[in-house]
């Protein structure tokens, strides 16, 4: 039961019900579509990158509580960050989700609420869909990415 509560924390419900930056971005200069083959969920990540700084970031699409909250939290933390920071964040975040004994690095901030996902291996793809899509957008791989 406590595992379930660790997964579905209030912050997750808050971002699921009221996702932040949940819209298309007119001034985007990078974007990519993401697709979770397991459940059919799709989302689009938009970025406005200026030099090596992410000026703005948003997403469209709807999914489960975990994928929606993760996308919403991702957009919040990435605004104003350097590209290298974004890459580091994703690596730390992925490590947190896939290693039982991982401690959250200080700069993960609110992303730490998703640590409960590691007790649910079937849901790691939900939590990382937005991040995989972000990477595709930054690499300007116009093709759709999947979580496979």
């Amino acid at each position: 039961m406590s595992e379930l509560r660790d997964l579905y924390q209030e912050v997750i419900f808050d971002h699921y019900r009221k996702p932040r930056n949940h819209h298309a971005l007119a001034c985007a200069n990078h974007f990519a579509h993401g697709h979770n083959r397991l459940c059919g969920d799709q989302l689009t990540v938009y970025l406005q990158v200026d030099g090596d700084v992410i000026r703005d970031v948003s997403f469209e699409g709807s999914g489960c509580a975990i994928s929606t909250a993760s996308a919403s939290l991702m957009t919040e933390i990435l605004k104003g960050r350097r590209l290298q920071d974004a890459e580091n964040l994703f690596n730390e975040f992925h490590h947190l989700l896939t290693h039982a004994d991982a401690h959250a690095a200080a700069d993960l901030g609110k992303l730490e609420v998703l640590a409960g996902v590691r007790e649910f291996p079937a849901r790691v793809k939900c939590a990382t869909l937005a991040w995989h899509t972000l990477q595709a957008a930054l690499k300007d791989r116009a093709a759709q990415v999947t979580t496979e």
Partner: protein
Amino acid sequence: MKMETDVLLQPAARWRADFPVLRETVHGVPLVYLDNAATTHKPEAVLAAEADFYRRTNSNVHRGVHTLSQRATDQHEAARETVRRFINAASTREIIFVRGTTEAINLVAQSFARPRLTEADNIIVSAMEHHSNIVPWQMVCGQTGAELRVAPVNEAGELDLDMLGRLIGPKTRLVALTHLSNALGSVTPARRIVELAHAHGVPVLLDGAQAIAHLGVDVQALGCDFYAFSGHKIYGPTGIGVLYGKEALLDAMPPYQCGGDMISSVTFGETRYNELPFKFEAGTPNIAGAIGLGRALEYVESIGVNAIAAHERDLLAYATGLAAGIDGLRIVGTAREKASILSFTLAGVHPHDIGTILDHAGVAIRAGHHCAMPIMQRFGLAGTARASFALYNTRSEVDALMAGIAKVVEMFRP
């Protein structure tokens, strides 16, 4: 009413004891397995039959002169006879062992349909097919230029027979339809479909992956030309399934794969193919799997298909009644003729979240598009949660499902 319930429940409680895996716990609570449309569990008798084959026989079929090889052949062919009897085929020559429903349909697509199709021709499926009864036809249409036509399904998830009738034309070469929809639980009027198609001289393939375990299947009464099913959805092993085909059609078809066992003689100048059914069984078959499937069908016969169907009908009606009372729950698939499957959505909750929370209560269901994305799109959904019943499920397991759903609703209440 109470007495009637008990009478219905008692046998299921007895049948449960035959399935070892049902004694498992998950997350510290008893397993409530309601993902039977994905695969069913295996009774002790099937597990023993497979293990016995490897322990006491384990030889190749149709070739050796030694005792074990003869025993293996006898057991393998006895399983074929069990399958024949189970679906009431006219002859074991009409029973082809394959890996499963998917391979059976691919075999018909490539060996029966492909040589007959031109750009002028068409094949008809329905809007509620599993991907395995869509993609093989898309592929053969791509190879030949033929057209794939889709018979629509109404809001309840019932096949539109009138539209199907209008889609069938002089250039229709095959109608390939599900007998029981895995995503919605709709039972299609298979006999009427066959009559309709045959009136135009068009053969019919029925995808029986779901139906085989829940409806009594009599291929001669149905009149269908091909019937495909998988062993693992009727308490048998994975990796074994059956293609039934009318002998005259199978006879006229070229082999699907080539190799050992499917030939009668080979020279570098010419190869003569073996007779039915071996012509379609290239290579060493899944011998233990076939024997296990035969044992599974005998197990079902020992209980009786009608007794199982009555029990599952009770479970589905009970579950449907309780589900209808849950605020925000929508049942997807409300056909008048349904069997064994309750597909649903909950307002504001993604099916995957339902699946995770139910799993923590020990309740295993499927969440997603059920490999039937077109019918999900038809209903404007990315997916549903699906509970599916088998002979060993009980009303108290339905209660556990409903308690789990109540918990989901409570957790997601704003």
